[in-house]
C-alpha cells in the first residue's frame, strides 16, 4: 500500500527557505515519464525549500552520467542527488563527489560503491516480485504469461525481470514468451502483435514498464482477444488512467514524485547537519482498480 511518505520531512520546511543552497540532480533519463515525474518531485520540493537546482540528464549513458557529475561539480553544488543509470557504473561518479566533499544522495537506484549519505528508493526487484505475485493471485497460481522486457542490459530491465521471475519460480505459471520491447510503447505494440500471432493461449502479460504495457494493450485490443491480464510498472498518468478504465489490470507505483521530494528533504537535512539513515525505503504500491 502507499502510506504517507510525505510526512517525513514536512515540519522543518518553511523556516529554512533562506538557506539558499544549491542542489545538483543528475538523472538517468528524461525521456521516460517516470523520471520526468521524479524530477518534478525534486523541483517542487526544491522550490518550496528555496534551493537552487541544477538538473542534468544522462540519457541512459553511464559515461554521459560521469561527465554530467563532473560538470555539475564544477558549479559548486552543496548536495548531489543522483539517479544512477546503473548501480555499478555510477561508483566512480560518486567517488568524484566524495573527493570534493559534496554529499551524495542516490535516488531510485543505489550505488554499489563510494560514500553515499542516503539512498532513497523503492526496490525494482521488489516491484517485479509484487507484479509476479499479483499475477499468481489473479490466475490462481497457474497460467501462461508473456513478459515484455526493457532495453536489454539496463538495470531496470534486469531487476524487474529478476523480481518477477523470483515470484513465479515456485508457481505453475509458465512464461511462454519473453521478448525485449525496449521500454518503448511502439515496440510494445508490435512485439505484442507478434507474440499474439505466435501464442494462441495467453493469460497474462507482465511489462517491465507502463509504456510497453500501453502498447501491448493496444495490440491486445486490436486482436480482439479476451481475458488477457496486462500488468505494467511505474504507474504513469496514462497507465493509472488505463487501470481506472479497467483496461490495465495493475501497475506498480514506485511513487517517483515522493522519491524526488524526499531526496530534497534529505539533502536539506544533510546541509543542516542532521543525522540521516543510510536507506530510506519508499513503499511500492500496487495500483489496481
Amino acid at each position: 500500500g502507499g502510506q504517507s511518505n510525505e510526512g517525513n520531512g514536512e515540519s522543518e520546511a518553511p523556516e529554512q527557505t533562506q538557506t539558499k543552497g544549491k542542489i545538483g540532480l543528475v538523472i538517468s533519463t528524461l525521456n521516460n515519464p517516470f523520471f520526468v515525474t521524479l524530477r518534478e518531485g525534486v523541483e517542487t520540493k526544491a522550490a518550496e525549500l528555496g534551493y537552487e537546482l541544477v538538473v542534468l540528464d544522462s540519457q541512459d549513458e553511464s559515461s554521459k552520467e560521469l561527465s554530467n557529475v563532473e560538470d555539475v561539480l564544477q558549479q559548486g553544488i552543496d548536495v548531489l542527488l543522483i539517479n544512477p543509470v546503473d548501480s555499478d557504473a555510477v561508483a566512480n561518479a560518486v567517488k568524484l563527489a566524495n573527493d570534493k566533499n559534496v554529499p551524495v544522495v542516490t535516488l531510485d537506484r543505489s550505488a554499489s560503491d563510494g560514500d553515499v549519505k542516503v539512498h532513497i528508493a523503492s526496490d525494482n526487484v521488489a516491484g517485479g516480485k509484487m507484479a509476479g505475485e499479483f499475477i499468481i493471485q489473479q490466475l490462481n497460481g497457474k497460467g501462461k504469461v508473456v513478459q515484455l522486457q526493457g532495453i536489454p542490459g539496463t538495470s531496470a530491465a534486469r531487476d524487474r525481470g529478476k523480481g518477477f521471475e523470483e515470484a513465479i519460480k515456485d508457481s505453475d505459471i509458465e512464461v511462454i514468451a519473453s521478448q525485449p520491447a525496449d521500454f518503448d510503447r511502439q515496440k510494445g505494440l508490435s512485439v505484442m502483435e507478434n507474440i499474439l500471432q505466435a501464442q494462441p493461449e495467453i493469460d497474462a502479460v507482465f511489462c517491465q514498464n507502463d509504456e510497453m504495457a500501453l502498447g501491448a494493450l493496444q495490440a491486445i485490443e486490436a486482436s480482439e482477444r479476451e481475458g488477457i491480464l496486462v500488468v505494467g510498472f511505474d504507474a504513469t498518468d496514462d497507465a493509472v488512467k488505463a487501470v481506472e478504465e479497467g483496461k490495465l489490470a495493475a501497475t506498480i507505483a514506485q511513487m517517483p514524485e515522493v522519491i524526488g521530494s524526499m531526496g530534497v528533504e534529505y539533502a536539506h537535512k544533510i546541509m543542516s547537519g542532521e543525522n540521516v539513515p543510510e536507506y530510506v525505503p519508499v513503499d511500492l504500491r500496487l495500483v489496481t482498480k
Partner: protein
Amino acid sequence: MNHPNPIVRNNTLHNMFLKLRSIIGLLLLSAILSVLSPRFLTYSNLFNVLRQTSLNAIIAVGMTFVILTGGIDLSVGSILAFSSAIAANMAHNNTSAAVAILTGLVVGALLGLTNGLIVTQGNVPPFIATLAMMTMARGATLVYSNGQPITGLGDGFYLIGNGYLGQIPIPVIITIGALLVAYYILSQTRTGRYIYAVGSNESAAKLTGINTKLVKTLVYAISGFTAALSGIIIASRLNSAPPTAGSGAELDAIAAVVLGGTSLAGGEGHIAGTFIGALIIGVLNNGLNLLNVSSYYQQFVKGVVILIAVLLDRRKS
C-alpha cells in the same frame, strides 16, 4: 546507316528483377521462418507483418528520395515525433481528425523543407544538417509535450492506424499508396529523372539546366512528409504520441533503403527495393518474436541475418 548491334528493346521485367536481387534474401528468410514456425505463414500474421512494416516502409519511401540524391536524413525519427505530437495535441483538443492529421503532415514537410534549405542554401553537409535537426526537433518535441505522452486522440484519429478497408489494414493501404506515388514520381516524371541526375553527377546536372537546389530541397521536404505520415499512424495505433516516438527510426529506414539496393552515393536505386528492404527488417523482427529468441541473442541473430541477406546478392558488383 550501320549499327554493329541491333538495338534491343530491353526487357524491363528482367531488368527489374536483376535490380531487385534483394528479393532473394527476403524469400529465403521467409522460407526458413515458415519452416521454423507454423504461425509465420498464416494469413493473419502476414497482414500483421505488413502492418508493422508499413511504419518503417513509409519513412523509407521518403528516405529513398533523399538517398537517391546522395543525401541522408537522420532527422526522420525526431520529425516523426514532433509532427505526431502536434497532430495528437490537436486531436486531443477535439480538432477534427482530418485537420489534425493534415496539420501534422504539413509540419513534417516544413521541417523537412528546413533541412533542405539548410543543405542547399547553407551549404551544410546533409549528415550535419539533419543531425542538427534531429536533436532540435527532439528537443522541441520534449519541450512541447513536457516529456509526457499526449494521449486520448478520439475516434476519428483512431481510424488511420487501426482501421481496415475491406480486409486490408489502412496503414498497409497508405504504404502501398505511398510506394505507388513514389514509383510514379521516380520512374515516370521529370522530377524523378532530376532526382536521379542530381545523385548521379551533381555538377553535370547543374550544367544540363537542372535546378539542383530545388530538387535537393524537395527530397528533404518529401522525407519530412513521409516521416510525419508514419508518425501520425504510430500515434493513431498507440492512441498516444510519446515524445520518444521514432528514436532510432533513421537507422531502420536507411537500412531498408540500402538493403533494397540503393547506393548511399546516390544516383542508383529503386523504390521497390526499398519496400523489400523494409520487409526483410519487418519479417526478421516478427520471426524473432515468433520464435521467442531470447533477448540477448536477438540482436546477434538480427545482425547475422541482415548480413546473409545482403551477401546473397552482393557477391558480384
